[in-house]
């Protein structure tokens, strides 16, 4: 388990086998009773190739300093391909927030948190539908936004953009 602070936000990264324990601890011991959001992110190709070049200082690119003079910089590497971030809120004075984060490779499963926060039901279905992350123990793991027979997971970085296959009549 590791904890980062950035932009005034706390991120708690846990290994997937301990996710449910961490969630229960956060809910019952630390009072994070409200699950705001579950956001899955695909980091395929993160920092591997420059979109238009990763040029700049840690604070972003400075146009007063010529771009390639020792300031070329790639973003920090990520431990695995996908992150699943649970944004938690404690409904009390000060409104503390924390981000619980798990990292997985393609095909690895994440334990479902529907038993901890029932609202995770549709959020996890969305993460499965759009990002292809599998949740172990989800009671109703089906697509939610795309058609039931849709192929692929559209929010993945390797999903083709603008190349939707066209079905012609008469063809299979």
């Amino acid at each position, binding site marked *: 388990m590791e904890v980062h602070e950035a932009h005034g936000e706390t991120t708690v990264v846990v290994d997937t086998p301990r996710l449910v324990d961490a969630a229960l601890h956060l809910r019952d011991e630390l009072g994070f*009773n409200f699950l705001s959001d579950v956001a899955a992110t695909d980091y395929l190709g993160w920092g591997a190739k420059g979109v238009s070049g990763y040029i700049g200082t840690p604070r972003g690119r400075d146009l007063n300093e010529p771009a390639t003079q020792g300031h070329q910089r790639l973003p920090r590497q990520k431990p695995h391909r996908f992150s699943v971030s649970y*944004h938690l809120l404690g409904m009390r004075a000060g409104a503390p927030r924390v981000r619980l984060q798990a990292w997985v490779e393609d095909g690895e499963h994440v334990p479902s948190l*529907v038993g901890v926060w029932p609202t995770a039901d549709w959020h996890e279905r*969305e993460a499965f539908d759009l990002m292809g992350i599998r949740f172990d123990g989800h009671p109703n793991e089906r697509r939610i*936004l795309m058609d039931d027979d849709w192929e692929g997971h559209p929010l993945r970085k390797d999903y083709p953009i603008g190349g939707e296959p066209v079905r012609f009549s008469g063809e299979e």
Partner: protein
Amino acid sequence: MAVAPERPRIYEGTRIPSPTPSVLEVREDLRTSEDVLTVNFGPNHPSTHGVLRLVVDLHGEEVVGLAAVVGYLHTGFEKNMEQKSWWKAITYAPRIDYLSFQNNELVFVLAVEKLLEIEVPARATWMRMLLAELNRIHSHLVWLGTAALELGAISMFWYCFRERDRILDLFELVAGSRMHTRYFQVGGLAEDVPAGFWDECAKFVEVMPKAVDDYEGLVDRNEIWLERTQGIGLLSADDAIALGQSGPVLRGSGVDWDLRRAEPYLAYDQVDFQVPVYQEGDVYARYRVRMEEMRESVKIVEQAMRRMPGGPWIADNRKVVLPPREELHTSMESLIHHFKIVTEGFRVPEGEVYVASESPRGELGCYVVSDGGPKPWRVKFRAPSFVALEATATCMRQALVADMIAIVGSLDTVMGEVDR
């Protein structure tokens, strides 16, 4: 006029269906009785607020099973935003929720500003708050008009849209377009507020509280309205929190929670307003919360108008903000900045942030990941309507088929936001 003297008590314990919280399963004895009819409501049905589909199991008139099916309006906003520069992506945010467009725009801009750590001038902050509150009134007016229409009160619709049109006129005055204004820019506002705005806004502030009185006069003691809203669609406070409900649905269930007060953003900590809370957790309580929120929003608009600071309306940061137009003719540096920002887009430092705001529908969050480049790596919206629909199965327990319309209406879902 007879008014029901006693409000029904809210249930004890939890009523969230198990194991799937968003699906109400038919009881075993009913399913085997062959007396249950499965009906498909939607996705095109006048009273479903867009393209919501409900698969409902009916036992006589009683709803005994229910599953909401969404996705018919999925347009891939989040994927599209990844392909655009930060600058262009702002235009997508308001289209996600077409009734509270400025709140959506605001939360995305706030998230980008948080990553950039850019200072926003006070005038822009106050003007954003003013417009967000006008937008809240606008959204509640559309809700009230359509929710009443669904229950058969057609005149309400015309009155609400009369005031809504005045708000859209104000938006047009400020931003040049009536909806999807894209007036919030990273660093502040796109333009200064036009001089004629304040007079028009003052007229609106004067008219609006009287208009709310009129609406209340129309339905508040109307027996049909009370019969159809009171004690319907019950949701207890514990269940509302467990199901992630927010906004008027949560406050109608007796939870005193408003992000404008709990974690103040913009200048909400400097204005006076009340947070209406009702204990009953029914359709009527949600209606009452929204009516009072309209009055409170008018108060915030009035205070923001009175105390609007002068000065610049956008930050003076040439790496992010377009230079003033007149400088382009005299300064080479400004021309370069203008060219770079428009063609390539500004870069946002690497990182991830989650920003939450109180939209008319509840906690509207925006999770943004940047790799340091000119385009967002990932944008995810926490859509309050999406979460509100998860509560349908709990709210519909023991409901009749006619109540279903009132309950779905009271959750105030915008399908554009649900499906994104």
